[in-house]
């Protein structure tokens, strides 16, 4: 049973009714009491991203710069240089592409303590179309030196990530959805640590490595596969894409020999590519599949329909696991002939 967290303006019970962004807004308000150096910034998306909650509570420490994302991140860099601790929120597409150079050059190059909580990641703003989707941000941000990249599974994990990012020096990019994503966690005390994957289901036949909204779907798939197929599917919540928990990936290679990555992001450059790098460098044979947005501008539709269309739900990943399990694949213990 979920435990009520005391001393905060939200509880895990709220995670059923609050979006990731709403929980973020509340957590940031709590942090604002404890850390007077925190300042909040947005670019006319204070309400959509919920950083506006912080603005209402601390109007003197909040800057809504209008629709000007380059200026947004430039000002954040200057504030960080002056000794403040900026939290910046806008949509993922604008944070990483419209202002991508400011994030890279002003913030990452100078290794500044700027925390970016980007909303509307992936296709979570489905009806808005590709101008407001963002299936490139993980690829972009993980190529910026000094950047930490986190994709929380749900609102509870968003709370953990936002709290943890304060103690992590340098720039942090936390990517969340538009809202209405169902929660996975019922309790925030599951050992969240930046850079450490969480094994949410044990397994020996195959590993699904997921981040963001796919974590819950992967967990559901593992449950179904155990019941109906007798398969033992390990599920890793790889909330931190950078630095990647390479040890958890290598352990999965050794112990399950089959890996599927699962993300609401282009299959190029995201979690799948990060995991593939580790597998390739290990020199060890492993059946491998990347499930994500197949290098296209996504169609329009409600998020749940898009997740289904792009195989990002429990049903689709269940079928994918069966397909990968059916592959003819040499699975002896002799790694040498495969290196």
């Amino acid at each position, binding site marked *: 049973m979920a435990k009520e967290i005391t001393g905060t303006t939200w509880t895990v019970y709220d995670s059923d009714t609050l979006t990731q962004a709403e929980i973020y807004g509340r957590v940031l308000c709590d942090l604002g009491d404890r850390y007077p150096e925190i300042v909040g910034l947005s670019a006319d998306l204070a309400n959509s991203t919920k950083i506006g909650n912080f603005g209402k509570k601390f109007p003197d420490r909040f800057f809504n710069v209008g629709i000007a994302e380059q200026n947004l*991140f430039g*000002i954040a860099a*200057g504030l960080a240089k002056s*000794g*403040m601790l900026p939290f910046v929120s806008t949509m993922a597409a604008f944070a990483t592409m419209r202002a991508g150079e400011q994030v890279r050059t002003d913030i990452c190059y100078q290794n500044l303590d700027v925390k970016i909580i980007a909303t509307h990641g992936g296709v979570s703003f489905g009806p808005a179309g590709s101008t407001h989707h963002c299936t490139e941000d993980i690829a972009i941000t993980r190529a910026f030196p000094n950047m930490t990249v986190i994709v929380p599974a749900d609102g509870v994990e968003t709370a953990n990530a936002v709290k943890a990012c304060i103690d992590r020096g340098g720039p942090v990019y936390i990517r969340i959805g538009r809202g209405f994503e169902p929660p996975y966690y019922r309790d925030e005390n599951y050992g969240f640590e930046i850079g450490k994957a969480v094994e949410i289901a044990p397994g020996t036949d195959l590993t699904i490595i997921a981040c963001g909204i796919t974590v819950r779907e992967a967990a559901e798939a593992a449950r179904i596969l155990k019941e109906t197929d007798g398969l033992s599917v390990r599920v890793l919540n790889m909330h931190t894409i950078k630095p990647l928990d390479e040890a958890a990936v290598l352990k999965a290679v050794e112990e399950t020999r089959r890996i599927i990555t699962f993300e609401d992001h282009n299959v190029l450059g995201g979690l799948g590519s990060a995991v593939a790098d580790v597998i390739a460098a290990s020199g060890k044979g492993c059946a491998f599949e990347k499930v994500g947005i197949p290098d296209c501008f996504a169609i329009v539709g409600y998020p749940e329909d898009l997740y289904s269309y792009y195989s990002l739900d429990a049903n689709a990943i269940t079928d994918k696991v069966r397909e990968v399990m059916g592959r003819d694949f040499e699975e002896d213990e002799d790694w040498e002939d495969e290196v």
Partner: protein
Amino acid sequence: MPVSEDEVKKLKVKAKEIRKDIIDTTLAAGGAHIGGALSMVEIMTILYHKYLNIRPDQPDWKDRDRVVVSKGHAGVGIAPVLAGKGYFKKDALSTFNQFQSKFGMHLDSLKVDGVDVSTGSLGHGLSMAVGLALGASLQKKPWKTYCILGDGECNEGSVWEAAMSASHYKITNLITFVDRNRLMIDGATEEIMGIEPFADKWRAFGFAVREIDGHDFTQLSRAIDKALETTGAPWVIICNTVKGKGVSFMENEVKWHYGSMNSTLADQAKADVDNAI
């Protein structure tokens, strides 16, 4: 305090020394953005030798004034000034642009003492300067931020995003200079992408504007004093300058935006500087 005649004399000597250091550094570097470095020498000289509250022996001193040279390609016009203030030894400048040097043509704030902000990609500096100025206000600190923009740089839309916000937030602990040398890489600013009526643009964005001769220490001093004592609006000082100022064969020559010299040419350039009034 306006500059006295005696101070002007001393500043002129300092400016000559800085120009010659810029020439030497350009020679050592194998090439540098010398034209735009020479055009802002008087702005840099008066800031570093009259106005800035800094402690070169404590480069990270929290209460220092901040300088954001948004036209970051003019790094060859910054590093010699910092060396002259004692942030590092002048002979370090001989490594400029060389393998593993801490000095690249665009200076890195994490590597070069005295550089408050890394710049180089144009149109970024004023936003960061606004952030610094807001940070000082939030922390109730008296330090000031000084930002130097290039004129060609003002083609960048982000400069005007920043200007809009400086005015909206009524930022008066920031003084912006524009080094209006009228040339950019490909030619004259007004031929490539005109920015006139330039002063009117700043006024329309809510700035108090002063247009001066950017090589005249008395005019610079009066403008800075005025900006420091005024509290109604952010200030921009448009400094009309000459690209390549002080070296006869470089003045107003587009090709000296970025150039290389051999030692004969460098000697000729330094002789020019010495012979100037």
